[in-house]
């Protein structure tokens, strides 16, 4: 036993040295309740807030959070928002709350969060905090008795590419980065203080059926599925738009190459003629000629995000369909009885 303990300590020490990667996000029940309250009260408007906590080894502890007021497109109000944030942090510090930003939370509708804005926010946060997470909560899902909470971070290789703002096919191949590698989902753990645990045990009603059981056994998930499919179709449209962009690019690229070839051919015959006449050959490249100007390759970021989004919708549909099967068979057997 002592031996294994010693080894595990050694292992811990070994992992500490190589700046252990973020493995787990540990959230307090308080934070979950706060997030849910904020997101639900303003649903369907999308809201955000700040997460406070501690960074301990490979675990990121989220111990408190506070909501942001709904943002408006106004300079003055934006400055106001920054003030609000500072004020709130100061106030919370005074009552001994961990005064350390570890990320932010936001609500989403049907998991449609994979946007360029999210990545931009991530990069902003990442500049100041080495480790940050984004917690995503989906109020529409929780009506079905599911706790739709997700902790995300950007993968390191993606961040490197994003900083260089280089999303050409070549670079992506070099990094071996595909659309699945943009976001990393981090497993969530929930912790509560012993005091809260005691109170909750005290307050738990002794009815055998809980609200979430009712929600889970709800048979009508059609509106949810319909909207999910609608969103999926929209995404498909977006994806095909992106593909058209690429087709256009490849077409103009091949046209340009053909032009270049033709020009080169012409130049070579010209040079042959000049050689025969004993003159200096002209250079085989002409940077001033517009056909040699490289056509910028469209960024693949957008299509990656759309693909991610589609995969997400598919997962959701699969999940809910699976639940629905359960419900249907349950209903059937109940009815037979």
């Amino acid at each position, binding site marked *: 036993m002592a031996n294994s303990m010693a080894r595990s300590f050694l292992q811990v020490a070994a992992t500490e040295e190589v700046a252990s990667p973020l493995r787990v996000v540990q959230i307090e029940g308080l934070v*979950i309740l706060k997030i849910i309250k904020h997101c639900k009260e303003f649903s369907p408007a999308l809201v955000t807030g700040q997460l406070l906590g501690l960074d301990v080894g490979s675990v990121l502890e989220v111990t408190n959070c506070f909501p942001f007021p709904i943002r408006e497109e106004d300079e003055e109000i934006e400055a106001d928002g920054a003030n609000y944030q500072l004020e709130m942090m100061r106030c919370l510090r*005074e009552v001994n709350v961990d005064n350390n930003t570890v990320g932010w939370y936001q609500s989403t509708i049907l998991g449609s969060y994979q946007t360029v804005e999210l990545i931009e926010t991530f990069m902003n946060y990442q500049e100041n905090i080495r480790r940050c997470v984004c917690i995503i909560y989906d109020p529409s899902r929780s009506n079905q008795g599911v*706790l739709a909470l997700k902790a995300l971070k950007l993968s390191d290789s993606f961040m490197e590419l994003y900083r260089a703002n280089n999303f050409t096919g070549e670079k992506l191949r070099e990094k071996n980065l595909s659309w699945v590698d943009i976001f990393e989902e981090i497993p969530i753990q929930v912790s509560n203080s012993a005091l809260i645990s005691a109170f909750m045990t005290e307050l738990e009603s002794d009815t055998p059926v809980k*609200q*979430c059981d009712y929600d889970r056994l709800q048979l009508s998930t059609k509106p949810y599925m319909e909207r999910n499919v609608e969103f*999926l179709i929209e995404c498909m449209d977006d994806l095909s738009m992106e593909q058209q962009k690429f087709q256009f690019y490849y077409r103009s690229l091949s046209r340009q190459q053909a032009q270049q070839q033709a020009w080169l051919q012409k130049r070579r015959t010209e040079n042959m003629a000049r050689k025969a006449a004993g003159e200096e050959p002209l250079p085989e490249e002409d940077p001033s000629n517009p056909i040699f100007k490289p056509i910028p390759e469209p960024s693949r970021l957008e299509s990656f995000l759309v693909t991610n989004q589609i995969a997400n919708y598919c997962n959701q549909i699969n999940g809910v369909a699976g639940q629905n099967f359960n419900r249907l068979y349950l209903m059937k057997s109940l009815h037979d009885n």
Partner: protein
Amino acid sequence: MAADDHTVLQLSTPSTANLSAKVHPLVIFNICDCYVRRPDQAERVIGTLLGSVLPDGTVDIRNSYAVPHTESAEQVALDIEYHHNMVVSHQKVNPKEVIVGWYSTGLGVTGGSALIHDFYSREVPNPVHLTVDTGFRNGEGTIKAYVSVNLALGDRQLAAQFQEIPLDLRMVEAERLGFDILKTTAVDKLPNDLEGMEVTMQRLLALIDDVYKYVDDVVEGRVAADNSIGRFISDTVASLPKLSPSVFDKLVNDSLQDQLLLLYLSSITRTQLGLAEKLNTAAQIL
């Protein structure tokens, strides 16, 4: 503080008669968290309760924050500036939540409470005072709500008394989340869709078994029949829609097919995505 003088005539304001309070679980969580993080020398934490008064007079307590304070034998000093800053900040996020009262940890009302209550009475008419016994002095976590009632003899104000009001502690919100997550000190993993479903089905099954057992017991005369329970059971059975087996089968099969179609659609989309990804990398290598 409560005037225990029994000779005074008590004229409680009529509005307190049907006053009750409802507490959101977040408030309890917040208070506990603040208590855990209280300064070394502090005996208790106090803070402001935010929420709204519902049309039927129920005070809906939805949010809270702690206010630093210092307390000695006979005086209490609240950080009023802090309190005002926090109110302004909270108002920015949710203008609908206003001050409805204040909370304190500890069992019941203590000496300094009247002073603080006085302060909050100036902020909002008829504030609610919530006490949360974080020390579990009775062996249980007592949570109580009070309002202050004026005691007067004729026109003369004599004192104020804390009167307990009914408190609704049903935690529907917490139930939504699942007590399993909130009850224990550590949960390794959030339950996913199907695991949650499994738990719910097991509960349902247990309930049905209970009903079966009860009915069997009654039929065999082991348990005395209770009419009200019998009525509940018959209501429950009657609430199942009466459908002929063929209609029901059609209904179930149609839904099943819808679901299968959706599943098929999403699987094929995923396959497409995977294929496109492979082709993309293959094309780049060439």
